[in-house]
């Protein structure tokens, strides 16, 4: 059986400078996968290539059995990929309410927004505020909430807990573990513990190449790991 998201021999980059080199990645139908690596390793670039913000130079990105590497971002998203970008992850001048409304444009569930607000009660108190004025942590919550509203089958999270208060991180982790039972989740995370609690499987990128991969526990125990994460 093919992987849900199947990446083969992927090269990608910006302008003329290549960032990803021959990346191979398989994501199962459900469960969490962590992507680790130090600053500038190419994690964000990988996410952008999966969601289509950056074109793949070479190689194949197959989702749900179909090659999507030539499809526009919005088509990929409508096919079921949700994405929380690392930066600029909310519509800054739109209110929180409108940000959530954008998230649920494609969704059919009526109470989806209420569900998100129950996870992040803080957002409920900020509904009419432009999202750009939210605090750093609130913004992340909103971004995650927005992505969840789209009923994705595969959720890409690029550092979802950066700047989030520890108490909330715990909440997010639990939700993600729950979510990973139903759908596929790819998480890029600096909190190793968190990442490996959510993920069953992990990839470690080093300068655009997959340097290490394996079951979460295995990777955790690998003595090489630290070397790849240090600057």
């Amino acid at each position, binding site marked *: 059986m093919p992987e849900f998201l199947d990446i083969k021999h992927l090269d990608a980059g910006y302008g003329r400078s290549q960032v990803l080199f021959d990346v191979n990645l398989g994501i199962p139908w459900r469960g969490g996968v962590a992507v680790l690596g*130090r*600053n500038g390793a190419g994690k964000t670039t990988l996410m952008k290539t999966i969601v289509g913000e950056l074109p793949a130079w070479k190689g194949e990105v197959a989702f749900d059995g179909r090659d999507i590497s030539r499809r526009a971002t919005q088509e990929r998203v409508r096919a079921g990929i949700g994405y929380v970008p690392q930066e600029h992850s909310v519509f800054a001048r739109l209110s929180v309410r409108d940000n959530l409304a954008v998230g649920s444009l494609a969704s059919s569930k009526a109470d989806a927004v209420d569900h998100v607000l129950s996870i992040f009660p803080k957002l409920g108190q900020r509904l009419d505020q432009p999202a750009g004025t939210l*605090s750093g*942590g609130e913004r992340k919550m909103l971004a995650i909430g927005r992505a969840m509203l789209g009923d994705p089958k595969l959720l890409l999270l690029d550092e979802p807990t950066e700047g989030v208060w*520890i108490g909330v991180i715990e*909440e997010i982790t639990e939700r993600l573990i729950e979510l990973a039972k139903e759908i596929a989740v790819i998480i890029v995370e600096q909190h190793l513990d968190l990442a490996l609690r959510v993920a069953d499987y992990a990839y470690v990128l080093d300068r655009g190449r997959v340097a290490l991969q394996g079951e979460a526990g295995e990777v955790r125990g690998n003595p090489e790991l630290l070397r790849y994460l240090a600057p």
Partner: protein
Amino acid sequence: MSAASVRTQRRSAMPLLEAAGIKKIFGKLTALDGAALTVGENEFHGLIGPNGSGKSTLMKCIAGAEVPTQGKVSFVNTDITAFTPTERARAGMSLKFQITSVLPTLTLYDNILLALQAQSSLLDLVFSRTRGALHDQVMTMLTQFRLADRAFDAAAALSHGQQQWLEIAMALAGKPKLLLLDEPTGGMSLEERRVTGELLQPIKKHCSLVIVEHDLDFIRDICDRLTVLDQGKVLASGTVSEIQANKSVQEIYLRRA
């Protein structure tokens, strides 16, 4: 720990920065409700608190990015409440925003160079004779932050974490008396954080630091004193061990945001 002990502290060491009774109201929301912050010379001060507790807002009020609704900020014994950000920077303050904002099309080198010369007079800028000397400084900073090999790339081509480093380097470049860092290690791995901490240690000789962070271990490692904000109010302020022992602080760590 209470306001009383803060006051004692202030008397003992002459404070470099003193923000008192800061109130900031956004429409219906009171983001800061009489918050205070006192930082002594050569002190590393951590500012912590749940999301939305007003940390960034307090930093902005100090650096001049926001005008407090009420309250007073003094710096080196001068009341700077009415100063513009530029004037504050010239008085010796330097801020790194929570959201990175490097100058994207300029090279890393120029980004640093720009930060280095911020205080120069107009004539110096036009007829600068110091460029040769600045070169070494720029390269040293870039090397310190492991960015030297990218010196002549555009800043836009850096990853998020690399931009954080560039920003810290830029904030340091102005040789401030007080450095304000709002979540400088966001998006850095544990190891990278540690390196950042090491890079910050040497500046203690000539500079004070206010740093906002969520990573308690990191904060504990580098800070002398901590202030905890919650819902716009100072919940506690004191040395690291005092804070760790504080009941109400422990409470908010258990409480959901």
